[in-house]
């Protein structure tokens, strides 16, 4: 169903903050796409799915496009505080210049950094994760969820560390899954005890240290134990790690790893 739609739209119409400003307009909310959402082949699909929902729900949003830059999260977690703060100050300058007040992002790392580490450096915005915005749209009645192809399916949800433990967002993604009439099954380690996918702290960009197993494999095993038919993620990096884990277990054909935004877009037939 989605491939058909994709073929129809060659280029998605995405408003940029700059273009809106030039037309004397301001979006209600800025969608911070993030580096993964912009460049990573897998994560781009999440970005598109989320844009489709935003468009369907008639949300006034815009992206920064080429004016966006890495939040600095991987630099900070690697110990390069200089680079982090350079990135932060540059981004804050851009955001403040456009008088941005609200930001939504599909990346928990961007979310955490923008929300928690930018204020002290002069960037004060209301920052929400895309699952939180989707939940708000649901409450406002703008997003109507019906199970569609996900009705009755067993879905397990993997808590991203920077969304869950780091910021106590556990329920928004779960509410969305339950609204799809899907059966949410929890892994043995979930919510505040959720096991990391292995990508955080800049591990995404390096080889793991010597051990007896890769972290994403351990987490994939926990997900498989639930006998879920779909693994739901809410972070582009977790998505990559779990997709790799599922590949490693040769289950790619049976068990898709999907972002919550993708699941909702698909259920809506967008």
């Amino acid at each position: 169903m989605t491939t058909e739609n994709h073929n129809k739209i060659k280029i998605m119409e995405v408003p940029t903050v700059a273009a809106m400003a030039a037309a004397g307009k301001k979006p209600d909310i800025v969608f911070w796409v993030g580096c993964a959402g912009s460049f990573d082949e897998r994560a781009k699909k999440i970005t598109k799915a989320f844009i489709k929902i935003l468009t369907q729900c008639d949300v006034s949003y815009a992206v920064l496009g080429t004016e966006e830059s890495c939040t600095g999260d991987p630099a900070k977690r690697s110990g390069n505080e200089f680079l982090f703060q350079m990135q932060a100050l540059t981004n804050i300058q851009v955001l403040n210049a456009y008088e941005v007040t609200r930001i939504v992002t599909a990346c928990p790392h961007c979310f955490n950094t923008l929300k928690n580490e930018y204020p002290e450096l002069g960037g004060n915005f209301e920052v929400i994760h895309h699952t939180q915005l989707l939940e708000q749209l649901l409450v406002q009645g703008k997003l109507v969820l019906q199970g569609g192809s996900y009705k009755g399916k067993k879905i397990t949800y993997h808590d991203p560390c920077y969304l869950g433990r780091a910021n106590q967002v556990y329920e928004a993604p779960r509410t969305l899954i339950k609204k799809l009439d899907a059966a949410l099954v929890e892994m043995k380690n979930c919510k505040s005890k959720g096991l990391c996918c292995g990508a955080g702290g800049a591990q995404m960009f390096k080889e793991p240290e010597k051990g007896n197993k890769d972290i994403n494999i351990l987490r994939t095993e926990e997900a498989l134990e639930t006998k879920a038919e779909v693994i739901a993620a809410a972070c582009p990096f977790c998505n990559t790690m779990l997709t790799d884990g599922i590949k490693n277990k040769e289950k790619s054909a049976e068990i898709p790893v999907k972002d919550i935004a993708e699941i909702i877009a698909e259920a809506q037939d967008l």
Partner: protein
Amino acid sequence: MSYLPNVLFGLLLVGAIVFFIKNLNRIRKNILLGRHIDRSDQKSERWKNMARIALGQSKMVRRPIAGILHIIVYVGFLFINIELLEIVLDGLLGTHRIFAPVLGGFYDFLIAAFEWFALGVLLTVIVFWSRRNVLRIQRFWKAEMNGWPKWDADLILYFEIVLMTLFLAMNAADYALQLRGAADYIVAGSFPISKFLVPLFETITTPNLMVLERTFWWMHIVGILGFLNYLYYSKHLHILLAFPNTYFANLKPKGSFANNPMVSKEVKLMLDPNADPYAAPADDTATDFKFGAADVTDLNWVQLLNAYTCTECGRCTSQCPANLTGKKLSPRKIMMDTRDRLTEVGMHLEKSKSPSINDGKQLLGDYITPEELWACTSCNACVEACPVDIDPLSIIMDMRQYLVMEQSAAPAALNNMMSNIENNGAPWPFNNQDRLKWNQN
């Protein structure tokens, strides 16, 4: 001569307390070797945190079995301390069961309650010992527990077994004497547990039993004072430090890592077009300042308090994704290393009597290896798991800062990632002008 026991007791008590306070002062001094961090804000939130987590043990019961067992020992310990007050007064004044006439029937209830608590603690401690030594629960057998830490943990349990046994034996002997109507043994108290021990003393003559009762009494109090002073040399300081530690804990969201203020200053200067690049550095940029942490004195005092508070339960390590997959990193070891190094620095300072801690060693390298630091995913599982709000992650991050900003010693792949961010504004080598290209199919 009749005052000899009182004087002896007084000397012992004062000696034990003075010695303990001296050591506590050492700890205080060592903690204050840390860098400044302001935790004087949000006082009511802090009190609540302490009440909930330290006093209320809310994070302990997340593992219900260990949590409930721990509460038995904790509550038992608190209540039996009331009895300790009587023992101390008796010892100083030469009285026997001084509270009995004052409290009347309530005294019987109290003594009975203490006995039940003592039995509860005794049985629980045996279960604790079995969990370590019979069930061999994994987290108690990780590499960093080899040697002294393992011994220390068992020793504490033996200490508690002996103390509780002595308490019950002392009561039993007392009760036996009361039953015999021995002089000086006021009929007071109710002994629901120790009464079962009374038959053991049947063949012992009254004078001998009195000697035995005194022996138990003395051994019990000497044991307690000994245990008090053992705290300093053991991992068991959490019974005191859990309180300040939860009070001064980080209250921000766990994902909010501190922004290094020294870096902020420099970065703002770099980005300020009006800044004078040749301006003399301000006075507060001390020459020995370094970015990040290479030794314990580069950490802040709350991190050092964390290190002394750690009781090596290993809940952090058992939740650490790196440790679970066989990497060398163990958050518990980070805390133990920090404490051991800090103790070493403190001793060095005391001996050398100079303010320099140049003993040719440091935390980074001599205790904690870069391999451990680079294995961390910054997932906060360790911080979440700690029953007393210790934050090993902040130490790991500070040490990474030192490795990267002072030594340029990041793994090559991370250096690539960082130069990508510097050059293209993304961790991968993509052109920033292509940022919107995701909208094309």
